[in-house]
């Protein structure tokens, strides 16, 4: 009599302990069905307290108990080992509650519950793999806010994962993500594949089995249905690497192309104990296993970024853009604003404020329009409505690049407006911290824009970042330094390079030199003037400083109390201001 027989026969059905009542099981099964329908998407469910502690497989246990029955044969492994204490404990509990048989032979099981491994033995379309998950949110390393993570999943906005990898590559030369390597499921959802080793990641792709992953503590279940694409996140030109100990073999069975774990003597053992034992008795299908070996991903230092080592070009790589700016059909403008109104409603302690009271203007490609006014004039609120940081109360904003200018951009949802900011409309903020991540490198900040816009070649991104940074006169030897270590002027140059990274059609400059020392501001102003002259880009410059408007723009609006009170050619506004307020502004600028 085997141990499994003993376990199975130990308890008659009516005396089996219940770990999850029928209602609870249904809830889990409903969530599993949703998870299978939307591969890789984390489906929340009412995760219940289990006889094992949170983090010890309470999620996997709920799945196995919910989908299993007395007719099933259950295999439970931990680290690939059927005899680890946690595996024994869970197997005893599962078998006890289901009245199911247990097995150590993957070929023989109907359900395998596993922690940290996919068995070396390929599973069939009649088998289910249940993976226990300790951390279900793959974005957690780059985003601590749960709401922000959910938004990023909803919009498939995963650029920051690539940025984190870019940062790893430029600092250490390799991607540091180890086990639980982030993958893209069905080309849609980013998924944390429980922490299985990278060795097992390619083996998730297009598998025959159904894989269900469950995180009891975070109350999430997700799945990889059979024959579903699972791709590790990596740059097109940076190979994904599995763990591989070259020239090492298992000291017990002699296998080389399996997941090996190190012993303290520096020798290696199969992590999959069942596989190891069966290799020793010759009870394995070598040809089938061969197809499972992720050989294409064995590490090759020559293919790593330092091994490739492409020499970067400076600004010359930008070339002379003959790009002509887009206008709406039959119109001259790239950006048109009509009757924009923003009213901040009154609340207890604050009265309603008409910050913008009907502003209209348009800007053509190759043209720079100034908006001048003092603080409180409404110019910043107007700018925030254009950017999308504030919801305008009324009015229309049209962009030639969006639906040939037929769509009122103000009617788009937040996600669509965020996408506009990726390649149609860029902003340079007064405070570089508002437009940059100060914790990552100058190049990484540009990579952030490029990856968000769909760039997937590390070397293309790096070359583009180098060219842009050189163009804005950030020394190339500093491109891998954290922006937080840069001076204010240098940060502003990085922000400008980032804003231009995707060749936007509209550039919004919000007090771009305010806050910089006079001499530094002059340099940034020079740069902006050159960049505007070089490009067929529609530019709006908001500033309280007449000198900035004079240096950058051909024509300008004067805003006061939320309204445009005067507009004209910039030199005319300065030499021949008509409105009393503009005259005061000019007089002040002369002082």
């Amino acid at each position, binding site marked *: 009599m085997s141990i499994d027989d003993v376990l199975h026969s130990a308890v008659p059905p009516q005396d089996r302990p219940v770990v999850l009542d029928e209602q609870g099981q249904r809830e889990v099964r409903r969530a599993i069905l949703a998870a299978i329908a939307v591969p890789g998407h984390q489906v929340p469910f009412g995760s219940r307290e289990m006889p094992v502690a949170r983090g010890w497989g309470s999620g996997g246990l709920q799945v196995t108990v919910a989908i299993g029955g007395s007719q099933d044969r259950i295999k439970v492994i931990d680290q690939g080992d059927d005899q680890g204490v946690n595996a024994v404990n869970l197997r005893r509990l599962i078998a006890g509650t289901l009245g199911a048989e247990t097995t150590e032979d993957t070929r023989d099981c109907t359900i395998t519950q596993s922690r940290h491994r996919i068995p070396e033995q390929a599973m069939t379309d009649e088998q289910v793999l249940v993976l226990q998950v300790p951390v279900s949110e793959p974005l957690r390393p780059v985003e601590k806010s749960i709401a922000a993570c959910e938004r990023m999943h909803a919009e498939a906005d995963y650029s920051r994962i690539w940025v984190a990898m870019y940062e790893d590559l430029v600092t250490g030369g390799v991607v540091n993500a180890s086990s639980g390597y982030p993958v893209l499921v069905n080309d849609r959802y980013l998924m944390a594949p429980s922490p299985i080793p990278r060795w097992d990641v390619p083996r998730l792709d297009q598998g025959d089995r159904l894989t269900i992953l469950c995180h009891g503590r975070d109350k999430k279940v997700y799945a990889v249905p059979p024959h579903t694409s699972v791709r590790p996140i990596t740059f097109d030109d940076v190979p994904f690497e599995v763990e591989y100990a070259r020239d090492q073999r298992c000291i017990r069975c002699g296998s080389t192309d399996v997941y090996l774990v190190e012993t303290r003597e520096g020798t290696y053992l199969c992590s999959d104990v069942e596989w190891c034992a069966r290799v020793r008795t010759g009870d394995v299908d070598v040809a089938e296993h061969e197809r499972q070996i992720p050989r294409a991903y064995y590490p090759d230092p020559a293919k790593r970024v330092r091994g490739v080592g492409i020499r970067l070009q400076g600004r010359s790589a930008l070339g002379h853009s003959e790009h002509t700016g887009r206008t709406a059909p039959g119109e001259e403008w790239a950006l048109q604003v009509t009757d924009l109104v923003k009213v901040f409603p009154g609340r207890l302690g604050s009265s309603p404020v008409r910050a913008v009271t009907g502003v209209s203007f348009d800007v053509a490609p190759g043209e720079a329009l100034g908006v001048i006014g003092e603080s409180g004039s409404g110019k910043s609120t107007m700018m925030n409505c254009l950017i999308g940081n504030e919801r305008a109360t009324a009015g229309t904003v049209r962009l030639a690049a969006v639906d040939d200018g037929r769509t009122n951009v103000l009617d788009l949802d937040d996600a669509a407006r965020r996408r506009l900011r990726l390649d149609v409309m860029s902003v340079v903020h007064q405070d570089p911290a508002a437009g940059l991540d100060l914790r990552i490198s100058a190049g990484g900040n540009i990579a952030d824009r490029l990856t968000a816009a769909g760039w997937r070649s590390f070397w293309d991104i790096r070359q583009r970042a180098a060219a842009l940074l050189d163009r804005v006169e950030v020394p190339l030897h500093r491109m891998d330094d954290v922006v937080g270590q840069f001076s204010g002027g240098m940060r502003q140059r990085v922000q400008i390079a980032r804003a231009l990274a995707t060749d936007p059609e509209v550039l919004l400059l919000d007090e771009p030199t305010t806050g910089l020392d006079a001499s530094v501001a002059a340099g940034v102003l020079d740069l902006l*003037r050159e960049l505007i002259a070089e490009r067929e880009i529609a530019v709006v410059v908001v500033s309280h400083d007449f000198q900035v408007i004079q240096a950058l723009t051909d024509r300008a609006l004067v805003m006061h109390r939320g309204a445009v009170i005067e507009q004209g050619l910039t030199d*005319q506004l300065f030499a*021949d201001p008509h409105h009393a307020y503009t005259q005061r502004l000019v007089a002040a600028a002369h002082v």
Partner: protein
Amino acid sequence: MTEILRVEHLNKTFHLHAIDRTVVSLRDVSFTVRRGDHLALAGSSGAGKSSLLRCLYRTYLPDSGTVRLTLADGPRELTTLSDRHMARLRGREFGYVSQFLQAPPRVGPLELVTQAARRRGLRHDPAVAVAKDSLTRLGIDEALWDMDCAVLSGGERQRVNLAAGTVSPPQLLLLDEPVSALDPANREKALALIETLRAQDVTVVAVYHDMQIIRRLANRVLVLADGRTIAEGNPTDVLGQHIDALEEVSL
């Protein structure tokens, strides 16, 4: 010859709100300029010469009257032309050289003049070539070409300004005392350069203080006093008749 600029009943008054004053600058000014003309504006200080140039260029906005510019593609009314089209016109067909250079910081003469040529439609390499030619003709030492304009002398800056204004010249060019700060030798170079504009079929409206220069360069002259036109005609005739209005200048 065809008409390029027609100015009718132009008036300009400034309202200074802070001190509650009005200053009348131009009163009912009318004249026409034909293609290829070199029209000089003469008159004593404060007569309205520079104001008139600025009203044409729309650095000042006239209160009433019309300014019609006729180029190959037809006539335009400049007083009501949109800011955007006025700005475009200024970049290509319509130039203005002020008395003083307003160069952005840390830009050298060569880059400044090259940028001006680029704005008028030349590609990068030809623009550099004509910029070098222009600076050479105005006697700007090659050693200065990449220096910050801010370190140049007043005369050098005026010549760089003239080079930028005349390189790959626009069809209509306004010059406001373009040689006032130059010593005799450099003045001669500048005048020679301005003279070549006629051969390039550039129409010029210019303010000069020096009657000799007017006689040498202009084919027509308009004399202003107190914001009004008091005489118009060829320089030889008009300057003799209105010597009193120009007295201050002759001295």
